[in-house]
């Protein structure tokens, strides 16, 4: 077990940046923290979490998949990929750390998405425990422990520094090559720091949710519930929830003609958009009600059905803060669970 006093965080990052690119959360305008490449002088944000999730590192908002050049009548394929450099992300919270294992289930399942797999192979996740989870946090409802996040290396915050523990071979090798910056520590301190976080986490207002009404096999119970109409009534279909969500992974594939070549790229898409399922011959999700229902049914029923019961939500609370009409997965869960009791 190693220990890194907060005063030595900059030195750790400086040393780490010599090994690989390292990204850290940095405060931006309007208290919006965002991941930035660490450079000497970069101040690590003290915010609980970044406005956008950390999924960009492995599933970027836009990404070129393949290129085409056309000469007379002939086509030529161009593979735009360059070997991704090794990088590390420091400051990933427990919710986002779990989101990676959820994204893995989509992108690494057969046939694996080689673009995502390549980024995962080159990325190192340095997670940090949450000292004070926020009122909008509900990771614990989904079985996530904010005091002990997943990741290649876990940094457990005790207010004055971090207990540092490697969880993977990759993480171990990384710590090994930086050993000079850490103090030795015993596990009791880490345990106490975790207990402090747990005491707060146990009192979170949204810390338990009625999930027993949801999960694989519940499609018939939930799909035709009348509450979908009132829940979705004010949804403006902006898709913000899907963009800030660490587990939303739907994407579009489109072509862009640069004049010199055609670039086929993928970009984040949203099931909340009216043209998401639109075909030349019609649209199976005609109104916002069907699109809204799809998003929550996917996270709460379809995803668990296909993935051994795991829910497609990590309780990060970003959608609670970002939705312009104040709708969110917690309200959906509670509404459908309550009314289900009465019927």
């Amino acid at each position, binding site marked *: 077990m190693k220990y890194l006093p907060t005063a030595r965080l900059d030195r750790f990052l400086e040393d780490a940046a010599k090994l690989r690119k390292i990204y850290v959360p940095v405060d931006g305008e309007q208290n919006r923290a965002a991941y930035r490449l660490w450079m000497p002088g970069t101040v690590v944000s003290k915010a609980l979490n970044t406005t956008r999730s950390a999924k960009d590192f492995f599933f970027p908002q836009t990404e070129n*998949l*393949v290129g*085409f050049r*056309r000469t007379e*009548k*002939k*086509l*030529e*394929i161009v*593979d735009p990929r360059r070997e991704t450099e090794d990088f590390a992300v420091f400051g990933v919270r427990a919710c986002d750390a779990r989101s990676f294992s959820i994204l893995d289930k*989509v*992108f690494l*399942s057969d*046939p*694996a*998405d*080689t*673009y995502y797999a390549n980024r995962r192979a080159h990325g190192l996740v340095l997670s940090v425990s949450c000292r004070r989870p926020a009122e909008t946090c509900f990771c614990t409802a989904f079985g996530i422990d904010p005091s002990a996040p997943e990741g290649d290396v876990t940094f457990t915050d005790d207010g004055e520094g971090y207990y540092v523990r490697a969880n993977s071979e990759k993480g171990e090798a990384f710590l090994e090559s930086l050993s000079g910056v850490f103090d030795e520590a015993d596990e009791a301190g880490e345990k106490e720091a975790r207990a402090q976080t747990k005491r707060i986490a146990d009192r979170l207002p949204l810390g338990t949710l009625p999930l027993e009404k949801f999960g*694989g096999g519940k*499609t018939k119970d939930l*799909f*035709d519930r009348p509450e979908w109409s009132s829940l979705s009534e004010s949804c403006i279909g902006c898709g913000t929830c899907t963009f800030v969500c660490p587990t939303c*992974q*739907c*994407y*579009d*594939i*489109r*072509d862009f*003609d640069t004049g010199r070549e*055609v670039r*086929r790229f*993928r970009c984040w*898409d949203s*099931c909340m958009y009216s043209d*998401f*399922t*639109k*075909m*030349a*011959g*019609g649209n*199976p*999700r005609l109104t916002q009600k*069907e699109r809204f229902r*799809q998003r929550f*049914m*996917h996270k709460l*029923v*379809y995803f668990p*059905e*296909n993935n051994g019961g795991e829910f497609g939500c990590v309780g990060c609370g970003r959608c609670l803060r970002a939705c312009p009409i104040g709708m969110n997965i917690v309200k959906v869960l509670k509404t459908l669970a309550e009314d289900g009791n009465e019927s």
Partner: protein
Amino acid sequence: MNPETMLPAICTVTEIRTDTPDVKTFRVVSRDGKKPFEHLPGQCAMVSLPGIGEAMFSVTSSPTDLEWLEFSIKKCGHLTEWLHMLEPGMEVTVRGPYGRPFPVDDELLHKNLLFIAGGIGLAPLRSVIRYVRAKRENYGNVEIIYGARSKADLVDYDEITTEWTRDMNVHLTIDRAEDAWDGHVGFVPNYVKELSPSLDSVALVCGPPIMIKFTVQGLTELGFRPEQIYTTMELRMKCGVGKCGRCNIGAKYVCKDGPVFRFDELGELPDEY
């Protein structure tokens, strides 16, 4: 399937047949002149014109067609309008095959088969029909009930009337009477009820959603069970491998868990297609 699922193969269009005023059949081979890949009847592939778009089409040739793939494509949107402007010798990209095929080598083996198609809905069934014809001794009696708006809209009319009638019972119908038509007139679902096909057969149904709905209703009235009826679904698709998230019906992805579904399986899914 290529492990690099997003990298397509460049293929040459060697032959284009005009089937109907808005349906053309494209024969494609890879650059070395061979069949681009092996598939099973009912499977699909992503066909693209780079810069225009990419979309999922069922392979309408049979695995027993050894030298090429064929796609019968109706002009009904942006990409398909461009595809209809292609000329032989031009190149497209193809990736696949995708999805679950019709169970031609297990559940359908030695069975009496009843194909029911409407309009362009014949395209995905054509692959199965050609396969069954190539291995005719492996299947029982075969009935084909096929209808379109008019005689001119019957896809593969020549192949049907000169070849399929040799070893299968073909029943054609068109929606409205025409001077040059002495065959049956009427909608497919009604014609199916009129013909009252034998209950000891497996039905494979494809066509516009409304035609499928009424046909299956009719079959059910005749006594067919959902386990005896197959169809093939179509929803918007982008990736073809169950990741981009748009072709799901409930927890099933049409691109990977379908496109072929048995009606008892569809009954378990929400009515959102």
